[in-house]
Structure formats: structure tokens, C-alpha cells
């Protein structure tokens, strides 16, 4: 254990696991309750387009990726709210187009591009101090938003029509939630990559939902499962030749399967 902590890259990786392990389950709680799981997958794939624009133009890829991810999330919400095209159709189109843009731009780079693999599947061991600062800033902004408007966001997830009738600013709060989801996706790509990040946005909340009949315990379970996944995956990848991103997602999937199996068994017993 002390050996792990003696490497500076592992110290940074552990800190990243902590930050993302808090951020993703927080957003996952709302993603599951508002049924935005597909949106999470859509944003992450679109983000590849934004990152590639950054790499091709010399701008900061994290910045262009963030703008792309937040932009996709908010425009999906906006277009589907106009009521002409359904949300899953919009996501389905953004999903593939963003990814295609990313692949098209990256293929123009000369020679082999090794970072592509990190982008797709994450590389938590290569996290820099600057990445950590960005993650911490995103966490601070998103946590402030979520905590300040927690009861309003919960009410919107439960019954949007009633929230509108009560005079709550449903449109801006929903857009804020989508932007927070986009930002979370972007900072989490470092950890698990474009392809796997959706699991971090869905599994903690989905497993916690099955364990709780009250939102307070659901939120706590979601956090515990998210942290167990991110730290567990990191340790597994240290001792076994498995990439950390894949290990994190596999642990989360195993926790979900266990929760479903135990719940099924307990229900059968009663």
C-alpha cells in the first residue's frame, strides 16, 4: 500500500479517482432519476469531436472538448423541448456525428497517434496537475449548483409539470443540469475514456436506485458505489495487467449485477 502511495503518478491518480468518484455519482443520481442515461453516452461520444478540434487546431483539447460536451447536452435539451424532434433521435444523431468528426480529424494527423487509445479508453495514470485542477474546479462548480438547487432539481425529476405550475425556473435549472452532465463527462474522460464514461454516469445511480426507497439513502449509496468503483479499479489495475478504465467499469458492472441478484433473491424470500 505504501509502495503505491510513493509514486507521484499514483498520488495524482488517487486524487483523480476521488474527485471523479464524487462527481460522477452525484450527477448519476439525477441522470437515473431524470432518465438521461442515453444522453450521457451521447455526450461522451460527441466530446471526441471537440477534443479532436482542439488537437487539430492547437487549442486546448480539454477546453474545446468541454465546450462541445456542454454544447451538445444543452442543444439536445433545447431541440427536444421545442417538441419537434424527440430527445433520443437528437442524441442518436449527435452521438455518431461527433464521433465521426473526431475520427475524421484524427485520421488527418501524420503517423500513428498513440493518445487516441487514451482518449477512447482513458488513462488515469497519465493525469497531470493541471488536469487535477480542472477536475477540482468542475467539482466545485457542479457541487455548488447541485447543492444550492437540490430540492428544486429533485422536484423537476419527480414531476416537471407540477414544478412549472409552482413557478420554479424549470427551463434554466434543467439546462444547468444538462450542462453539469456535459462537464462531468468531459473531466471523467481522463479516467475511463470516451467509450466507457457512460458507465460512470449510469451505474452508481442505477444500482443505488435499486437499493433505496428514499432519495437520501439513494444519494449516499450512489456516492459509495462510485468511489468503490473508481478506487477499486485503480488498485486492480495496479496489481493486474488491466487498464484502469476497464477495471473501474467492470467493478461497477459487477456491483450492479450483485445488487440486482441480491434484490431478486430477497424478494423471492419474502
Amino acid at each position, binding site marked *: 500500500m505504501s509502495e503505491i502511495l510513493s509514486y507521484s503518478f499514483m498520488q495524482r491518480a488517487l486524487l483523480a479517482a476521488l474527485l471523479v468518484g464524487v462527481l460522477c455519482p452525484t450527477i448519476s443520481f439525477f441522470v437515473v432519476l431524470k432518465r438521461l442515461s442515453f444522453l450521457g453516452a451521447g455526450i461522451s461520444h460527441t466530446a471526441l469531436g471537440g477534443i479532436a478540434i482542439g488537437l487539430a487546431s492547437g487549442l486546448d483539447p480539454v477546453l474545446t472538448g468541454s465546450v462541445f460536451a456542454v454544447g451538445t447536452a444543452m442543444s439536445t435539451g433545447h431541440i427536444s423541448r421545442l417538441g419537434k424532434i424527440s430527445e433520443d433521435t437528437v442524441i442518436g444523431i449527435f452521438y455518431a456525428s461527433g464521433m465521426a468528426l473526431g475520427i475524421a480529424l484524427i485520421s488527418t494527423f501524420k503517423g500513428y497517434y498513440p493518445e487516441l487509445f487514451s482518449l477512447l479508453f482513458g488513462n488515469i495514470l497519465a493525469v497531470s496537475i493541471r488536469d487535477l485542477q480542472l477536475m477540482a474546479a468542475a467539482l466545485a462548480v457542479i457541487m455548488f449548483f447541485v447543492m444550492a438547487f437540490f430540492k428544486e432539481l429533485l422536484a423537476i425529476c*419527480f414531476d416537471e409539470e*407540477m414544478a412549472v*405550475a409552482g413557478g420554479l425556473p424549470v427551463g434554466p435549472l434543467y439546462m444547468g443540469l444538462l450542462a453539469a452532465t456535459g462537464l462531468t463527462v468531459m473531466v471523467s474522460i481522463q479516467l475511463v475514456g470516451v467509450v466507457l464514461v457512460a458507465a460512470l454516469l449510469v451505474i452508481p445511480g442505477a444500482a443505488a436506485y435499486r437499493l433505496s426507497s428514499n432519495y437520501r*439513502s439513494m444519494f449516499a449509496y450512489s456516492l459509495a458505489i462510485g468511489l468503490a468503483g473508481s478506487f477499486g479499479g485503480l488498485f486492480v489495475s495496479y496489481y493486474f495487467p488491466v487498464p484502469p478504465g476497464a477495471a473501474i467499469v467492470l467493478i461497477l458492472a459487477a456491483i450492479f449485477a450483485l445488487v440486482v441478484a441480491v434484490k431478486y433473491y430477497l424478494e423471492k424470500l419474502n
Partner: protein
Amino acid sequence: MRREIAVQEVIKTDQLTVNLGGKTVLEDITFSAATGELTGVIGPNGAGKTTLLRALLGLVPVQKGTLTVLDKRGNHLKEVRPMIGYMPQRQSFERRFPLSAADVVATGLLSPRTTFRRIPEKNKQVSQALGAVGMESYYNSPFQGLSGGEQQRVLLARALAKRPGLLLLDEPNSGLDFPAQQSFIELLRELKEKDNLTIILVSHDLVSIAPAADKLLCINRTMHIHGHPAEVLRSPHLDEAYRCQFDFLTTGGGVGRCWH
């Protein structure tokens, strides 16, 4: 004198017309509801009943005509929202949501004024609202574990939490079995008597609401008839509104009819 009118007529519409997405959803609706009156709004699916409630809340724009709710009209309509208890249709909420009965009722207290303020877990308004619908012993019960009828009572408590003078209920009876429907309507009648509440109750099910209503408003995009239940049920306009034939079911109370 003016004050008296304000108290007497809680809702007044005059040739109200509402367009949504280029289509006329409601046309030429003229009716009024006085304090302590239960008005049943009936009509087939897609008749514009929900739109009428949303217009009363100031959630959809009025194209033509006038609409006055609690003495407010036009852009001022949204000012009366805190004084209105609303119960949207059943499909508007998530049935398997991790909230307790008290949490659900507490969402009825939210308004722009409660932003950044904590609503205490043990809240007097919440327990009183649950008490009013006979659900006080379910305060901490998970909402998802309640029966359909119990959930509807909790949602009614949510609409009552702000102690409104006007209640707008959208198909509160749908999906309930007959005894649950009867006891829900009975509860509404009690609440109306006790607190002198004005209630607008929307339903496509004429039979279940007619006995409790003081007045019925029959619409199918446009208004077909507005009046006392007995008159409405005997009116030939009713068949026209539903575009089907009605027959009397019982003549005992003079209000029961069924349709083919």
C-alpha cells in the same frame, strides 16, 4: 361591492380561445365558478380539458377572449399560482420515485420564494395536508409502496399543502378502481364543505364525477354546455360533445348515465 364580486367569482372566462402549435385547442369557452363550488369539466380525450386548466394557471397564452382567476387576468395570471393547488395528470409524475409521502407533499410548497431555503423535515403544513386527506400515519412511508388510491390522496395533499383557495384537479380518478374513485370523490366533497374550497375537477368519466359536482362544463374543443348536472346530463348537446349516444343508467339521483 367590487370586493364582493372578487370573492364570489373565483374564475370567470368570456369567449376564451387558446391556440397551441397553430391549432385551436379551445374556442369560445364562457363559464364562471364561484367560491365553494365544485365544477366538473367533462369531455372526451383530446377535448382540451388539460389545456383549460393550464390556461387557468397562466401556463398557456390566451388568444382571444378574457380569463380572470382570483381577480387577476392577462400577464398577472401567474401571480395567483401560489394561491392555486394543482394536481396534474397521473402520467406527469414518476411512480417509482424514491420519496416518502411527506417528501412528495413538501414539493407542493416549492416556489421561487423557497429557493436557497431549507424546508424542515418535520413540517407542519405537510402534516396538516396529509391529515386533511386521512394519510397522516403514512408520513414517512415510501411513496412507491402505496396503492394507486393512496398515491392519489398524497398528491391531493401536495396540492393542498399551500392552503389554496382554488383546486385544479386533472383526471384524479383515472387508473383507480371504483371503490377508490368513490372514496376520492367523497373526500373532495368533504374538503369542499369544510374549507369552502373552489374545485375544478377534470375527467373524461362523467359517471364518477357528476354526483359530486355543483356544475358541469362539457367541452370538446368548444363549449357545449355549462350548467347544473341534471340539466347537462339531459341535454342533447352532451351526445354531440362526446360524438356518441348516452343512455340513462339509473334515474334515482337523476345524474347517472352511461355511454356506448
